């Protein structure tokens, strides 16, 4: 196969594992630290360096933190043109860096911004890009094996890219553990040439409004709502308060506008792995189950006894969620099973 493909390159000319650190006004998306943790192992397996790619404005601290979380080097493109994020200047900067530095592997968080960026940059590099991976590995020949659920999570497909570089993948938030911070870790920070000029950009961000950025992937307990709630979140919120749990949602509840998309669990949302996952009024489509299957204990509350969610639950109650949730909250408090004086969580 080697060399036969259109646009194929010499793989030996490419080295190092890059992680794109997604940063907005100084705040780093947690998935970037998750990727650094996972990529540290990949780089070690390949005997190569782990490089953090930091693009933004005034990002020295972000670059330093990337080193403290495992990067051997941080490449920093620091310029006002990069704040806030826009696909075209970020893509152009990345294209120049790939041409100059030849990374073998590039990993990007599967956020809306990460998917926007990855889809933009794989084309000029003629790179293979695997979407929403849940496992990463290296085969005997040093090829990246990017694994992603396919066909509604029934199958895990392994995608490889023999003749093109870099080998690129987006990875879902919450799949890997975030790399710990070690303030004593040494590493190099390198400022790279900025190749983008504001006058050549194709878009302008007029306003950026970000409020709720709760990270449900870190939660120990989750109460998730679905279509069965009919827009009334009060019973689920009461239960979440009692359990000191984060509120999450199925795609249906997000599409209906009841809950912010940052709290969506499932194939197009986040992967969560709490100790307790309570699915309230969620039917249990495979796409949703895929995002919560790693939960330790799953509880389902649904008035439809045939709802598929019961197949994926440890404990199921067939009943009206508007009665079951408040009753459970009350019972937990009465029996002293939860801290009755716990401060209610801020409402999303």
């Amino acid at each position, binding site marked *: 196969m080697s060399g036969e*493909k*259109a646009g194929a390159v010499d793989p030996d000319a490419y080295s190092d594992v890059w992680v794109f650190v997604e940063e907005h006004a100084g705040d780093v998306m947690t998935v970037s630290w998750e990727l650094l943790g996972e990529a540290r192992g990949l780089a070690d397996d390949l005997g190569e360096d782990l490089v953090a790619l930091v693009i933004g404005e005034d990002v020295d601290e972000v670059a330093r933190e990337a080193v403290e979380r495992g990067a051997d080097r941080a490449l920093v493109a620091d310029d006002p043109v990069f704040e*806030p994020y826009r*696909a*075209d200047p970020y893509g152009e900067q990345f294209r120049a860096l790939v041409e100059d530095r030849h990374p073998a592997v590039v990993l990007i968080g599967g*956020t*809306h*911004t990460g998917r*926007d960026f990855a*889809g*933009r940059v*794989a*084309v000029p590099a003629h790179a*293979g*890009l*695997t*979407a929403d991976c849940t496992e990463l590995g290296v085969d005997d020949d040093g090829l990246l094996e990017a694994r992603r*659920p*396919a066909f509604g999570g*029934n*199958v*895990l*497909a*392994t*995608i*490889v*890219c*023999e003749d093109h570089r870099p080998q690129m993948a987006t990875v879902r938030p919450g799949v890997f553990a975030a790399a710990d911070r070690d303030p004593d870790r040494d590493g190099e920070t390198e400022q790279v040439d900025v190749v983008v000029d504001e006058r050549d950009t*194709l*878009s*302008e961000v*007029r*306003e*950026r*409004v*970000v409020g*709720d950025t709760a990270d449900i992937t870190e939660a120990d307990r989750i109460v998730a709502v679905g279509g069965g709630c009919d827009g009334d979140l009060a019973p689920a919120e009461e239960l979440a308060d009692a359990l000191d749990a984060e509120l999450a949602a199925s795609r249906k509840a997000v*599409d209906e506008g009841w809950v912010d*998309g*940052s709290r969506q669990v499932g*194939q197009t949302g986040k992967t969560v792995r709490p100790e*307790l996952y309570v699915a309230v009024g969620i039917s249990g489509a495979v796409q949703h189950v895929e995002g919560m299957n790693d939960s330790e*204990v799953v*509880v389902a509350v649904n008035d439809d006894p045939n709802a598929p969610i*019961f*197949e994926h639950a*440890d*404990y*199921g*109650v*067939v*009943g009206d969620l508007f009665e*079951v949730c408040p*009753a*459970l909250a009350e*019972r937990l408090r009465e*029996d*002293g*099973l*939860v801290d009755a004086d716990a401060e209610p969580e801020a409402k999303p």
Partner: protein
Amino acid sequence: MTTDPTIVVGVKQVPDDDEVRIDPDTGHLDRASAPAVLNPPDRDALEAALSLRDAAGGTVVAVTMGPPTATDVLEEAVAMGCDDAALITDRAFAGSDTWPTSLTLAAAAESLGADVFVCGEETTDSSTGQVPPGIAAHLGWAQVTYAEALEPEFDDGRLVARRDVEGGYEIVAADLPVVVAVAYGEFEPRPAGLHRKLYAETEFEPLELSAEDIGLDDGEVGIGASPTEVGGMETVEPVERERETVEDAAELADALADAGVVG
């Protein structure tokens, strides 16, 4: 300044998600088991494109890349109100991953003279979301993904969009020409009119274009130009759950205490 803009909408025929079966022996999708339907997010894209035309004039052309049977989704698009439709079909496209797929749709957009190329955020059969930014990259155009609302400022050569981001939104003004991927669930698709439906089914013939027609060489598309390969498939064993039904909240509280997750 853009008068009479051409708005091209990319649509795709996909296996019906609700009907798809998995071959128990191979673990692969049994495509023959599921009827082919219009990718649901693309219906939102059609609505977004038609609304843009309602607001700013011009024409809407639906385009799909696929086998001749994909004409069905073009008929749906025309029934919904698209002015015209094009089927991009060629054996050379077989086995295309997202890279040559975006190249093909980019070439189609250019051939059709698109000012705006609208897509759904992703397709339900592959769920990568890579094609819309890929099209923009091939063309060197601006892009807006996860668009929740659109405001044409075509007279000033711009399209303004509200874009969904983690925990909030952005207002982005993008220069024309532009690729827009719309967030699923944000544009309520209009029903197809009876008259349009009849027209689409009986009179309408889509434009048919080959790779050569849109200026592509066979070697630039298809499996040979696809950087990714499927290296293997494993069936995922379902997680074993207790699947215990409890009567009420009180019993559930006890079960959770027994399981050690509360108390």
